[in-house]
C-alpha cells in the first residue's frame, strides 16, 4: 500500500464525505471520524490539482467546525471547539506543560487537552507538546480519537508526561475486505471481526493461528496434536464439505494463499504416511502481521471464489512508513508442560513375567513413567523489523528466528523468516509499484505420530505397572551378536508398542520446508474515480520428508533391515489478477464504489515419493534409495500433480445512499479445470447484501450511540477435486502389474453450490461504552461431491455422488463493555459467543451415508447420514436385553453387539463462549481470556486400550472393588451385578472396544490466555523509544474438562478422526516472557 502526499480534487457541491473518500483513494490515508460530525457541514466547491494533502484538508475544513490531525496514515477529523481557549471566570495562576505520546513513545500531535469541567483546553503540537493554565486541583482530560480517554490530576506537576493507549473501539474503523478493498466497518453488510497484530504476538505459539483461539466469535480452532509446528483446523460456521477442505481461506494482502495440507493421518494406526507437516499459515512470522480480519460467511467471501465459501481470514502485513524510521525488536521465550496425564493404577503388577498387560498380583506402588519421558517444551522467538522510507519509497524488512522443542523429546522446530517489502511511487504518484519477497526455511524433527504405530506413547502408557522402565530408557538398544547390529531393547513383541526411546531415536522423521512467497503489484490511478491494479504472486513450497526406520524395529512395521521413506514435493501456486477499482459519486446522496476484474489461479503439486515398504533394504540402516530391495509402485513413484486451474471474472458494486444505506452486489463466474469432462465447465454465483444505519435514519434515544441492521445472501460455487471426473482407468501395481482403478469415474458431476443467508445487527450504547453485535446465519450446501464406499460387487470400492443438502445454521454474538473507562484502572471486557447446528437434510438416494474416516482396529467410524450431522461418531456397543441390561455370557464376559455400528455421539462443539478482558493500570496491562466449548462427545481409544491392558486407574479401582458394577443379565436370565474386572475390560476395552463405553462429554472451560504487560517508562528522546515486558501464560487452568484428554486437540486437521483420541500427546500448558523494544 502506498501513501501519496499530493491530491487532485475538483468539483462543485461536494460533500465532505466524498472528498475524504477521494483523498483516501488517492493517498492511501484512512479517515477516522464520527459520522455525526459531518452532518450539516454542507457542500464545498473545490479546485485543487496536485496539491499537498495538508492544503487540501485546510481548505476543506476552513469554514467548518472541524479540525484534523494526521497520525501515521490515519487522518483524524474532530471538532474544532476546544481549539480556542475561552476566558473563564477564574484564570488559574499556574502554567502546566506536558507531552503526550503513544504506547510506542511516538509524540501525538493535536491531542485535545481539556481542563475537566471547563471549556479551557489546548491542542498538542507536532512534538506532542502542550501548555495551558491550570490549578493543582484541576483534572486534565486527554482526548484523542482512536485512543482511550485519559484523565490526569495536575497536582504539583508542572511538566506532565502522558501516554495514551489505542482503544479497542471499532467505531468507524476501517476493515479490509475482499480483494484488499478497505471499507469503513459500518458500511459492511456481513459479519466481520478484526483482530490487531498485537493479539497474535501477545503470547506466541509456533503456529500463529492458535493465538486467535477464543478471540473471534464463530471461529473454531482445533490445534493438531502433532507437536511444535503442527497445523490447526480452522473452521468458521461449521464444516460442510465431506471430501474437500472445510478450512477457512487465508488471504494475504489480497492474494489467496494455498493452504493445502501436506499430509494428515486418516486411520487409527497413524504411522509414517500420516505425519503432519504443518499448514502453510503456520509458517508466517506473526510480527509481520499488522492486522487480521475474519470474514465469517460466504457473502464476505464471494469475491475470492470457491475457497471463500468456508469464510476468509484476511491478513494485512506491515509495510514501510514514510518519513519515519522504526526498528522493532522482540524476543520471547515460552516454556510448556503437559497439561494433564492419563490416570494409572499403582496396585497391580504385570500379569506374568513376559506378559504385556497388568492383570497380575498386588504390588506396592508403581513409578510415574511419564515424567521420565516428557520434557519441558520451549519456544524461543527473536524477531527484528526495520521500517522506513521517504514519500516516494518505503521499505520494510524483517527477520525472525523461531527455535522450539516439543514436550516429546527430539521433537524440534527451527524456522527462519525473511521478509523484504518495497513500495515506490512514480509518475506524480499516479503509479504505485509494490513488491515483496518472503523466504521461509523450516525444519521439523520428529513430529509426534499419533495412533498405534510409531507412537512412543503406546509403549510408555501400556508398560506393565510396577515394572522398572528405566533400563529401557538408559539402553533403548542393545548389541545383537548374531547380526552385529544394535537392535531394540524391549521386552515385548507387539505391533502397537515399541520402546519409546527407540522410536524417538531409531524411527525418526524430519520435514524440511523451503518456501518462497513473492508478490508484485502495480496500481495506476487513471483518474480520480478509477484505478487499475495488476497483481501477481507465486507461492512455492518445497517439502522434503524422511523417515528412517532402523533394523530392530518390530517386524510388523519394518523389514528386518529397516525401511526408508523419502518424499520430495513442491506445491506451486501462481495467482494473477487485473482489477479496475472505481468510486463514482453519482450525486450528493448516492455513490457507487466497486471493482471489475479477472483472475487466474493455478496450483500444481510435483514430486516423488520413495518408500521401501515391507520389501525393505539390502544393507541394514543405510538410508538411501539405491539401497531399496525392490521398487513397489504402490509405495513409491511420481506423485499425482493434482493440477487445478481456475479462471474467473467478477465484479462488485457497493452503492451507498446518504451514508446510511448500503447495498452490496457481487457476481462471479469461474471456469475450473477440475470440471473438464463434465457437462458443466463453469459456474456462476452472485451475492447481495443490504445494510442500514438506523441511528442515522431515525431519532433514537440518546443512550443509543449507533445502530445498524444488515442482511445478505450469497451463493458460492465450488468445483470438485482434480481427477474426480476423470480418474485414471488403471493404476500401477506391484511388480510391473496394473490394476483397474477401484474409484468409478464421475462424468455427470455437477459443481457444488453453497447458499448462505445471514442477518445481523450491531448496537452501541452509552457513548459506545457498550456494544453488541449479533448475527444469525444459515448455509445450505448442495450438489456436494462426496466419495461413497461402493458394494464391492460393483467392481468398485468407491464412487462419487453429488449429495443433497448439508445445512449449518447458527448465531454469533459479540458484546463489549468498558467497565471502567474514565478511571485510573481501566477495564474492558468482551464476550464472543457462537453456536452452530449442522444437519444433513438430504444425501443422494443411492448413498444413504458418507464415511469421513473409518478406523479398522478401533471400532470407530466417523460418518454422516440423512438426519444426522457432520462428524457423527459410530461404534460398537454392548449387547443389552429388552430391559437394557448388559448381556453377560456363561463365562462371565460381557457380550458385544455385532453387526452395524450404532450412533454414539457427535464431536462438534454445540456452542462456545470466549470471555476476553483487558485491564490497565498506569503502565501495567493485564489481559486474560477464558473460553468454554460446550456440548459434543468425544471418544478415547487411549483409555479403552489402557483399560484392556489393566494399567488405567479405573481398572485398578475395579479390582479393588472386586469387579465392575453392572446392571447385567446372564444367559439364564439371572441378574448380574458384578463382572470380574479383567473379563470386563478385556472385552469392553482394547482396540476393538465396545467403543460406546468410551464416549465422554467434550465440554471444556479453560483459562486460555493470560498476559501481563509492563511498559517501561522511557523518554521518547532516548535511543530506545519504547520498551515493553510481558509475562504470558496459555492454557493455564481447565475449569472443567470431562474427557480424559483435551477434546479440542485433533489427531488430524483434515476432515477425519475428529473427536477421537488414539494416543495423542497431551495438550500443553505454557508460560512465557517476552520483551519488545522499539528504536
Amino acid at each position, binding site marked *: 500500500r502506498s501513501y501519496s502526499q499530493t491530491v487532485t480534487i475538483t468539483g462543485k457541491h461536494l460533500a465532505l464525505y466524498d472528498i475524504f473518500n477521494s483523498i483516501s483513494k488517492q493517498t492511501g490515508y484512512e479517515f477516522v471520524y464520527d459520522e455525526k460530525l459531518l452532518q450539516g457541514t454542507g457542500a464545498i466547491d473545490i479546485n485543487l490539482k496536485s496539491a499537498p494533502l495538508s492544503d487540501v484538508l485546510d481548505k476543506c475544513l476552513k469554514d467548518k467546525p472541524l479540525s484534523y490531525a494526521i497520525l501515521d496514515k490515519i487522518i483524524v477529523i474532530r471538532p474544532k471547539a476546544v481549539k480556542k481557549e475561552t476566558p473563564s471566570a477564574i484564570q488559574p495562576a499556574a502554567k502546566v506543560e506536558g507531552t503526550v505520546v503513544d504506547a510506542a513513545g511516538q509524540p501525538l500531535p493535536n491531542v485535545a487537552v481539556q481542563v475537566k469541567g471547563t471549556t479551557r483546553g489546548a491542542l498538542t503540537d507536532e512534538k506532542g507538546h502542550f501548555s495551558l493554565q491550570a490549578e493543582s486541583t484541576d483534572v486534565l482530560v486527554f482526548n484523542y480519537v482512536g485512543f482511550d480517554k485519559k484523565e490526569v490530576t495536575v497536582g504539583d506537576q508542572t511538566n506532565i508526561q502522558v501516554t495514551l493507549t489505542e482503544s479497542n473501539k471499532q467505531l468507524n474503523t476501517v476493515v479490509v475486505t475482499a480483494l484488499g478493498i478497505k471499507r469503513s466497518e459500518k458500511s459492511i453488510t456481513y459479519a466481520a471481526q478484526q483482530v490487531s497484530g498485537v493479539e497474535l504476538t501477545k503470547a506466541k505459539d509456533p503456529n500463529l493461528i492458535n493465538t486467535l483461539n477464543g478471540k473471534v466469535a464463530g471461529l473454531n480452532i482445533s490445534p493438531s496434536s502433532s507437536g511444535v509446528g503442527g497445523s490447526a483446523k480452522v473452521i468458521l460456521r461449521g464444516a460442510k464439505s465431506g471430501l474437500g477442505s472445510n478450512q477457512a481461506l487465508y488471504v494475504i494482502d489480497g492474494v489467496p494463499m494455498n493452504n493445502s495440507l501436506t499430509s494428515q493421518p486418516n486411520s487409527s494406526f497413524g504411522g509414517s504416511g500420516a505425519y503432519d507437516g504443518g499448514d502453510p499459515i503456520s509458517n508466517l512470522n506473526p510480527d509481520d502481521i499488522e492486522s487480521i480480519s475474519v470474514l465469517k460467511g460466504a457473502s464476505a467471501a464471494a469475491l475470492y471464489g470457491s475457497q471463500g465459501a468456508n469464510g476468509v481470514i484476511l491478513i494485512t502485513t506491515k509495510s514501510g512508513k514514510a518519513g519515519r524510521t522504526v526498528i522493532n525488536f522482540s524476543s520471547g521465550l515460552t516454556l510448556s508442560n503437559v497439561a494433564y496425564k492419563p490416570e494409572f493404577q499403582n496396585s497391580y503388577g504385570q500379569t506374568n513375567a513376559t506378559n504385556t498387560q497388568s492383570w497380575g498380583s498386588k504390588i506396592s506402588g508403581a513409578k510415574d513413567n511419564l515424567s521420565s519421558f516428557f520434557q519441558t517444551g520451549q519456544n524461543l522467538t527473536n524477531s527484528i523489523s526495520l521500517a522506513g522510507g521517504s514519500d516516494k519509497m518505503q521499505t520494510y524488512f524483517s527477520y525472525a528466528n523461531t527455535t522450539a522443542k516439543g514436550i516429546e523429546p527430539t521433537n524440534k522446530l527451527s524456522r527462519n523468516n525473511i521478509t523484504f517489502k518495497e513500495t515506490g511511487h512514480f509518475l506524480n504518484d499516479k503509479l504505485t509499484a509494490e513488491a515483496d519477497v518472503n523466504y521461509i526455511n523450516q525444519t521439523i524433527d520428529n513430529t509426534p505420530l499419533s495412533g498405534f504405530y510409531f507412537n512412543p506413547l503406546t509403549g510408555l502408557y501400556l508398560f506393565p505397572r510396577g515394572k522398572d522402565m528405566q533400563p529401557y530408557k538408559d539402553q533403548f538398544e542393545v548389541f545383537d551378536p548374531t547380526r552385529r547390529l544394535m537392535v531394540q531393547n524391549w521386552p515385548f513383541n507387539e505391533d502397537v508398542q515399541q520402546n519409546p526411546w527407540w522410536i524417538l531415536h531409531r524411527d525418526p522423521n524430519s520435514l524440511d520446508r523451503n518456501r518462497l512467497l513473492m508478490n508484485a503489484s502495480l496500481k495506476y490511478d487513471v483518474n480520480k474515480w478509477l484505478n487499475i491494479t495488476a497483481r501477481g504472486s507465486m507461492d512455492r513450497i518445497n517439502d522434503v520428508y524422511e523417515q528412517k526406520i532402523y533394523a530392530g524395529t518390530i517386524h510388523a512395521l519394518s523389514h528386518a533391515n529397516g525401511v526408508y521413506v523419502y518424499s520430495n514435493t513442491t506445491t506451486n501456486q501462481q495467482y494473477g489478477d487485473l482489477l479496475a477499482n472505481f468510486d463514482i459519486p453519482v450525486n450528493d446522496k448516492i455513490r457507487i464504489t466497486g471493482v471489475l476484474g479477472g483472475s487466474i489461479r493455478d496450483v500444481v503439486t510435483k514430486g516423488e515419493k520413495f518408500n521401501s515398504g515391507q520389501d525393505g533394504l539390502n544393507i541394514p540402516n543405510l538410508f538411501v534409495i539405491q539401497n531399496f530391495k525392490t521398487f513397489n509402485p504402490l509405495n513409491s513413484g511420481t506423485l499425482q500433480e493434482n493440477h487445478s486451474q481456475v479462471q474467473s471474472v467478477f465484479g462488485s458494486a457497493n452503492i451507498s445512499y446518504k451514508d446510511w444505506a448500503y447495498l452490496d452486489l457481487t457476481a462471479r463466474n469461474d471456469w475450473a479445470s477440475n470440471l473438464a469432462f463434465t457437462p458443466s465447465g463453469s459456474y456462476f454465483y452472485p451475492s447481495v447484501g443490504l445494510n442500514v444505519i438506523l441511528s442515522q435514519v431515525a431519532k433514537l434515544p440518546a443512550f443509543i450511540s449507533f445502530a445498524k441492521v444488515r442482511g445478505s445472501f450469497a451463493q458460492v460455487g465450488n468445483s470438485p477435486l482434480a481427477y474426480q471426473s*476423470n480418474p485414471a482407468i488403471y493404476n500401477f501395481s*506391484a511388480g*510391473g502389474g*496394473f490394476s483397474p482403478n477401484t474409484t468409478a469415474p464421475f462424468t455427470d458431476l455437477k459443481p457444488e453450490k453453497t447458499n448462505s443467508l445471514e442477518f445481523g445487527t450491531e448496537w452501541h450504547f452509552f457513548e459506545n461504552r457498550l456494544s453488541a453485535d449479533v448475527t444469525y446465519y444459515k448455509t445450505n450446501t448442495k450438489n456436494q461431491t462426496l466419495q461413497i464406499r461402493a*458394494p464391492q460387487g460393483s467392481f468398485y470400492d468407491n464412487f462419487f455422488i453429488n449429495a443433497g443438502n448439508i445445512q449449518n445454521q447458527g448465531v454469533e454474538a459479540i458484546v463489549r463493555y468498558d467497565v471502567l473507562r474514565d478511571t485510573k484502572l481501566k477495564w474492558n471486557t468482551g464476550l464472543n459467543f457462537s453456536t452452530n447446528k449442522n444437519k444433513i437434510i438430504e444425501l443422494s438416494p443411492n448413498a444413504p451415508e458418507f464415511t469421513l474416516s473409518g478406523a479398522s482396529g478401533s471400532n470407530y467410524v466417523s460418518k454422516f447420514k440423512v438426519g444426522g450431522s457432520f462428524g457423527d461418531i459410530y461404534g460398537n456397543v454392548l449387547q443389552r436385553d429388552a430391559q437394557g441390561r448388559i448381556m453377560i455370557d456363561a463365562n462371565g464376559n460381557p457380550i458385544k453387539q*455385532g*453387526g*452395524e455400528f450404532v450412533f454414539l455421539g457427535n464431536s462438534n462443539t454445540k456452542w462456545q463462549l470466549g470471555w476476553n478482558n483487558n485491564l490497565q493500570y498506569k503502565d501495567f496491562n493485564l489481559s486474560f481470556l477464558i473460553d468454554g466449548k460446550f456440548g459434543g462427545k468425544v471418544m478415547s481409544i487411549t483409555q479403552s486400550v489402557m483399560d484392556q491392558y489393566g494399567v488405567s486407574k479405573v481398572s485398578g479401582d475395579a479390582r479393588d472393588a472386586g469387579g465392575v458394577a453392572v446392571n447385567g443379565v446372564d444367559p439364564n436370565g439371572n441378574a448380574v451385578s458384578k463382572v470380574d474386572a479383567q473379563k470386563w475390560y478385556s472385552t469392553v476395552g482394547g482396540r476393538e472396544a465396545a467403543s460406546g463405553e468410551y464416549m465422554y462429554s467434550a465440554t471444556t472451560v479453560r483459562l486460555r490466555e493470560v498476559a501481563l504487560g509492563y511498559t517501561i517508562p522511557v523518554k521518547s528522546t532516548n535511543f530506545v523509544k519504547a520498551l515493553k515486558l510481558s509475562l504470558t501464560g496459555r492454557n493455564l487452568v481447565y475449569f472443567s474438562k470431562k474427557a480424559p484428554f483435551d477434546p479440542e486437540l485433533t489427531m488430524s486437521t483434515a476432515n477425519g478422526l475428529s473427536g477421537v483420541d488414539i494416543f495423542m500427546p497431551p495438550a500443553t500448558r505454557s508460560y512465557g516472557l517476552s520483551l519488545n523494544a522499539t528504536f
Partner: protein
Amino acid sequence: CTKNFEVYNQDNTGITPDDLKGDFNDIGAFLTRAQRSIINFSDGGDPNSYQLQQNLNADCYSGYFMSPNPFNGGQNNLSYSLINGWNGEPFKVGYLNVMASVNRLRRNGVDTAYPAVWAVAQILQVTGMSRVTDIYGPIPYSQVGTSKSAIPYDSQEDVYKRFFLELDSASNNLRAQINGSLKPLPFSFARFDLVYDGDSTKWLQYANSLRLRLAMHIVKVAPALAQQQAEKALDPANGGVITSNTGNMKVKVLGAGFSNPLVFIAQNWLDIRIGASIQAYMSGYNDPRIGKYFDKSTDTTFPSRYQGIRIGSINGNVSKGDYTGYSSLNLTNGTPSFSITTPVQIMTAAEVYFLRAEAALRNWANAGGDVETLYNKGITTSMEQWGAIPGAYLTDNTSTPAGFTDPKNAANNAPSPSAITIKWDDAATPAAKMERLITQKWIAMFPEGQEAWTEFRRTGYPKLFPVVNNFSGGVISSAVQIRRLPFPQNEYNTNGAEVSKAISLLKGPDNGATRLWWDVQ
C-alpha cells in the same frame, strides 16, 4: 482460455486403456492379477490382505495354523470374537481383484477374440469365487457390476450351479483350443500364465479337477447333482483330471516385490505358527512329511521339537513372544520346503486322488480305481510332492494321532482327538472310512487352509481340537466349531437392503454359527 483443462485434469500417474494395448498388456495384466489374487499376493510385499483373506481365519480354522500374536488382547477371530475389520477381506479380494480382473478381460473383448484365454479367466473366477461363497454362503454373483449402489445376492445353490455352467463353457473352449479348432493366439499366452505356462491341456485337467472338488462340496445337500458333475469331471472323454504333481495348480511367485504371503507372514512378521491339530496328527503318525512341512521349535525353554499352538489359546494373558518360538513353516531346517518365492499352492494331484477315492467310495462312475488304490495313490503322490519317503507309512495300522501338550501352559493340553489309523481298511465302518480318507487328504492339502476348512465343515473330519477360549458370547459352539464368517461391514453400509435379503437366503442369522447351504448336519 480453457483449452488445456482436459490436459490438466488428467492423472499423470494413471494408465489409459490405450497405454495397455501394446504387447497385449490389457490381457496379461488382468490375467496375472486374477491368478495372484485367489490367494492374494497381488499387491507385492505387504501380505496384509492375505492375512485377513485367509490366514487369520481358514488357515487356522482348518487346524493347520495358529497365530502367536494376541491380536486385540486375544479377542479376535481365532477365539471366535469376530472382528468387523477382519471379516470383509475375502469378499473384497474376490470382487475387486478376481472378478473385476475377469470382468475387464470380458470388456476388452477377450471372450470373443481369444476363447481359450477367456476359458482360463472363467476357471480363475470359479476358483476364486468358490472360496468366497464357501466363506459367506450367499454372495453377489449373477448380477455383479450392474449397479453402483445395490448388488443382489444369489443363493449358494444358484452360485454353485453357475460355477458348473461356467466350467462347461471354459472346458468346451479349452477342448476346442486343444484340438486345434480355434485360431492360434497372436501372443505368447505362456507369458501371462503363472500356473501352467499356457498349457491348455493342464488347464482343462485343472478345470475338471475343480469341478470334481465343487461337486464333492455339495454331495450332502444335492447328491444327484454332485454325482452328475463328478462323473462329468471324471469322464476321460472330457480331458481327465490332474494325475501328477506336474499338474498341481499353484501360482508362481515371479517378479520384483512379490512374495509368497504365507511365508512372508511366518518369516517376517512371526505372525503365524503351526496349529496344534496338524502337529498332533503328524507327530502321532510319525509322518515323514513333518520335517518338510515344519521347522522344529526354537524356544529355549523346552527341547526343540515339532510344537504347534492350540487355536484360541493366545488370550490376553500371553504375549506374542511367548509363542513365536513354536514351530514355524519349514524355512530353515535342512533343505527348506518354503522360501519367499515358493509358488502359492491351490490344488494338488494328491487332493484329486482323494476326491476320486471318495467318488469310488460312493460308487460313482469314472473314479478310475478302487478306493484303496486311490487312497494310497493320494498319499504317495503327496509324499512325492514334498520329497518324502513313505516307508511303511501306508501299512501302519497302529499309529494314531498324538495328544497335545503345550510346554508353556498345561491348560491347553488335550488328549488325542481321534483313534483313526493310516492303513486303509475296507472292512471299516463307513464313518471310519470317511474319517481315514479325509484325514489323509487333509494332511496332503497342507498348507492350503481354505479348502481344508471347507472339507472339515462338510465331513466333520479330521477331528480338530476345539478353540481353547471361546469369546463368541455363546453364539458359536466350540464343539461344532465355526461354520462361516459374517457378511462384511461394508456390505451392511453400502448394500444393506440386499444383505437383508441375503440373510433370508442364508436361512439363519448372519453370524459364525449358521451353516452354509451345503453344510448339512
